[in-house]
């Protein structure tokens, strides 16, 4: 098995968190790896050569305030809040941008430094329009915290009384309010460097500088993929998600409406952070109770349709392989790409429309769920689907766009009415007077409350692939996943490397399970083959993989590749609690894998309700006509020219 194939190099523009784990060899003792002693506020500190002053200070518990700095992003050094004094230098230096290469004597809070920070905050406030009370980021705003920390007691250089810019509400996912922008350019570095989507960039200069889209067009008219990573990294309320909580409350308050909510795995791992809990504290069952108390009529588990996705997408893969390998059909597009991440889907539609045939036609778990609720569930429960309001709790801002896609109406209605982010759900829960950690635990509602560990791990990068492999091993090879991987934990696909490549030799094949019998006669054609799969997260990495495929590289030999638009997968999604850092994402991943371990049933194909569904409703089986109508979709080649 190979990890991080050498021909796919991380670009130097990509942030540290997404770089490959390549350790450079030191050129000599004076170069990389050598240690150096600096003195910060009287304390001698030994750090590796090239460490920034900020990193050094943090490592030893010395706090230097920051604003434009972000652990996920490359250095900017533009806000100047983190300036410090270095002995022997006239000017102050930005500690986030100053690499230590010689012994320095640094002071972090001299009168001059404090005056500078106060001035900088005052200057930012003089351009920051908006009342904290009315801001989504109230109490979780970095500018607000800085103002408090530096004792801003009046607006020394004035404060805007009128908005200067119109709010851009055009996108289903992301709302931009440039009145609150402090020009830290985190969104620019997120969009151009971290995600390589390239929607936001600084335009104009001097005091006219502002963050703009191409030609300052509304967000809905440009190549935004709605990943919302910019929201997660915005220090203020300039970037927020398009919030439908008022509409959801209205539905809840309407007695004629039957309001269901499906919840994805990642919000459970993250929502605790909104209530002051440590990252990685799972809140699954507390949240079920809270949602019922908020007034949702049914609380379902999206993991159920995650399991269904594995069956549909897995079947599609096997069919593609059969056509390519046995029927020698050269038109079959391989590798097959996963399609659960709506940010990734739109990324493909804009930037690689020619590769759309590689996309699995299977809908995302959210949309499969939506289509089932207003058909199967409505029928079973005897509810008029026009009275059902289907809400989805997602870690994602792109899901808001996805549920508003015009083609997502296969149930005859809008399949999913509203997408809520983790943050918005936390707000609703608080609004209902509930402190989430205090809630008693309760389970999901039937019939969509039964899920497996495989559905849960969809939340982490590599999770879809691991779930798929668990099932493929058992359905094709006729052995138990546990026989090949301890506790069925397929560790090689896990982790946070930007791209991973895994090979799985199929030594033996088992009998074809009944449901596949009308699709393939036997598995013999797979005997001796090696299944090659890839995993990739963050669209910057996706770009590398796609270009590698175009150039006939390692990834072009893959059969199946999982793509997630967001760094870390859904647990790092654009709807998750703010802030986000590599450590926080790792903690959330741990919570997700812990939940997987706690399940009795951990493989999608062992979910009994899935087979019940195929028996009762999707009667012509996986990838059959009914499932094609309800659970599969098609894509729009949008292109990048606008």
């Amino acid at each position: 098995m190979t990890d991080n194939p050498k021909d796919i190099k991380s670009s130097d523009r990509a942030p540290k968190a997404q770089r490959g784990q390549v350790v450079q060899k030191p050129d000599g003792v004076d170069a990389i790896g050598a240690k150096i002693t600096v003195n910060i506020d009287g304390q001698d500190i030994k750090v590796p050569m090239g460490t920034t002053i900020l990193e050094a200070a943090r490592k030893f518990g010395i706090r230097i305030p920051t604003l434009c700095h972000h652990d996920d992003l490359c250095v900017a050094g533009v806000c100047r809040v983190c300036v410090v004094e270095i002995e022997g230098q006239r000017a102050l230096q930005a500690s986030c941008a100053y690499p230590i290469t010689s012994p320095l004597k640094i002071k972090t809070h001299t009168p001059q430094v404090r005056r500078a920070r106060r001035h900088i905050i005052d200057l930012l406030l003089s351009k920051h329009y908006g009342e904290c009370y009315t801001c989504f980021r109230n109490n979780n705003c970095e500018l607000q915290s800085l103002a408090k920390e530096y004792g801003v007691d009046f607006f020394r250089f004035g404060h805007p009384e009128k908005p200067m810019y119109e709010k851009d509400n055009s996108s289903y996912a992301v709302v931009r309010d440039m009145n609150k922008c402090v020009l830290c350019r985190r969104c620019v570095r997120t969009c151009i460097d971290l995600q390589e989507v390239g929607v936001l960039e600084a335009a104009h200069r001097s005091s006219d500088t502002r963050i703009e889209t191409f030609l300052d067009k509304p967000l809905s008219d440009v190549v935004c993929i709605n990943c919302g990573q910019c929201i997660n990294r915005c220090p203020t309320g300039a970037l927020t998600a398009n919030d439908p909580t008022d509409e959801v409350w209205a539905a809840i308050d309407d007695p004629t409406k039957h309001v269901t909510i499906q919840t994805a795995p990642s919000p459970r791992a993250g929502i605790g952070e909104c209530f002051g809990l440590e990252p990685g504290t799972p809140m699954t069952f507390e949240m079920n109770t809270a949602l019922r108390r908020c007034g949702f009529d049914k609380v379902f588990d999206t993991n159920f349709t995650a399991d269904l996705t594995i069956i549909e997408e897995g079947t599609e893969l096997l069919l593609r392989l059969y056509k390519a390998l046995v029927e020698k059909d050269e038109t079959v597009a391989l590798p097959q790409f996963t399609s659960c991440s709506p940010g990734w889907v739109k990324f493909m539609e804009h930037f690689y429309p020619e590769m759309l045939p590689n996309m699995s036609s299977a809908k995302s778990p959210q949309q499969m769920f939506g289509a089932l609720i207003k058909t199967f569930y409505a029928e079973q429960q005897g509810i008029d689907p026009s009275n059902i309001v289907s809400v989805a709790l997602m870690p994602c801002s792109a899901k808001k766009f996805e549920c508003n896609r015009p083609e997502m109406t296969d149930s005859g209605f809008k399949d999913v009415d509203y997408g809520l982010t983790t943050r918005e759900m936390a707000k609703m829960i608080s609004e209902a007077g509930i402190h989430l950690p205090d809630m008693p635990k309760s389970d999901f509602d039937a019939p969509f409350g039964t899920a497996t560990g495989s559905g849960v791990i969809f939340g982490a990068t590599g999770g879809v692939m691991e779930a798929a492999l668990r099932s493929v091993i058992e359905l094709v090879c006729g052995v138990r996943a546990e026989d090949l991987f301890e506790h069925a934990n397929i560790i090689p696909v896990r982790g946070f490397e930007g791209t991973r490549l895994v090979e799985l030799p199929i030594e033996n094949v088992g009998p074809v399970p009944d449901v596949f019998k009308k699709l393939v006669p036997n598995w013999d054609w797979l005997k001796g083959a090696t299944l090659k799969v890839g995993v990739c997260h963050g669209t910057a990495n996706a770009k590398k993989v796609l270009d590698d495929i175009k150039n006939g590289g390692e990834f072009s030999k893959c059969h199946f590749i999982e793509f997630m638009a967001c760094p870390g997968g859904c647990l790092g999604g654009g709807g998750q609690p703010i802030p986000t850092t590599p450590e926080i994402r790792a903690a959330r991943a741990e919570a997700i894998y812990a939940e997987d371990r706690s399940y009795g049933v951990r493989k999608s194909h062992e979910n009994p309700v899935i087979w019940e569904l195929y028996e009762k409703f999707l009667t012509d089986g996986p990838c059959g006509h009914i499932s094609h109508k309800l659970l599969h979709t098609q894509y729009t080649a949008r292109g990048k020219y606008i």
Partner: protein
Amino acid sequence: MLVSNRNRLDRELDVLIDKCGRQRTALMPILQAVQRKYGFIRNFAMQKIADALSIHPVEVHGVVTFYSFLSEKPRGRFIIRLCRTISCEMAGKDRVAAQLETELGIKFGETTVDKRFTLEWANCMGLCDQGPAMLVNDTHYTRVTPQRVLEILEECRSRLSPHAMQGAEEEHLV
């Protein structure tokens, strides 16, 4: 934009990009050439250039809006830039400016309706010993007086042969 004009621009850009190269370092020379030829850089051109250089159109937008000599909006055939920095100010640029505005009937920052003249302020252009100084496209004029304004404008107009103007107007009208 007429399809025929767009195709022509497309071909011209291909030639230009082949000449300047497909690295990001070629961005400024390409933009400068487009600006010089058309008086502005249209959105199609920005996207095409971005595509060729493997960068994002919004980055080109960021660059174009940063530099005062590059423009996304059509400007006049003659861009008149009057220096407003201290030495030229002391030498009497205000009166030259007033005369220019009167003669052309537009304010600074505007373009005449016939798309012939654009008036813009410029910062120090290194002709401080001979102020007030003025650039008309690439030609510089020094010690400009209100009386000379009319002469200079006439000189510009005389350089517009009917044929040359026809082509230019067609370009700007599309």
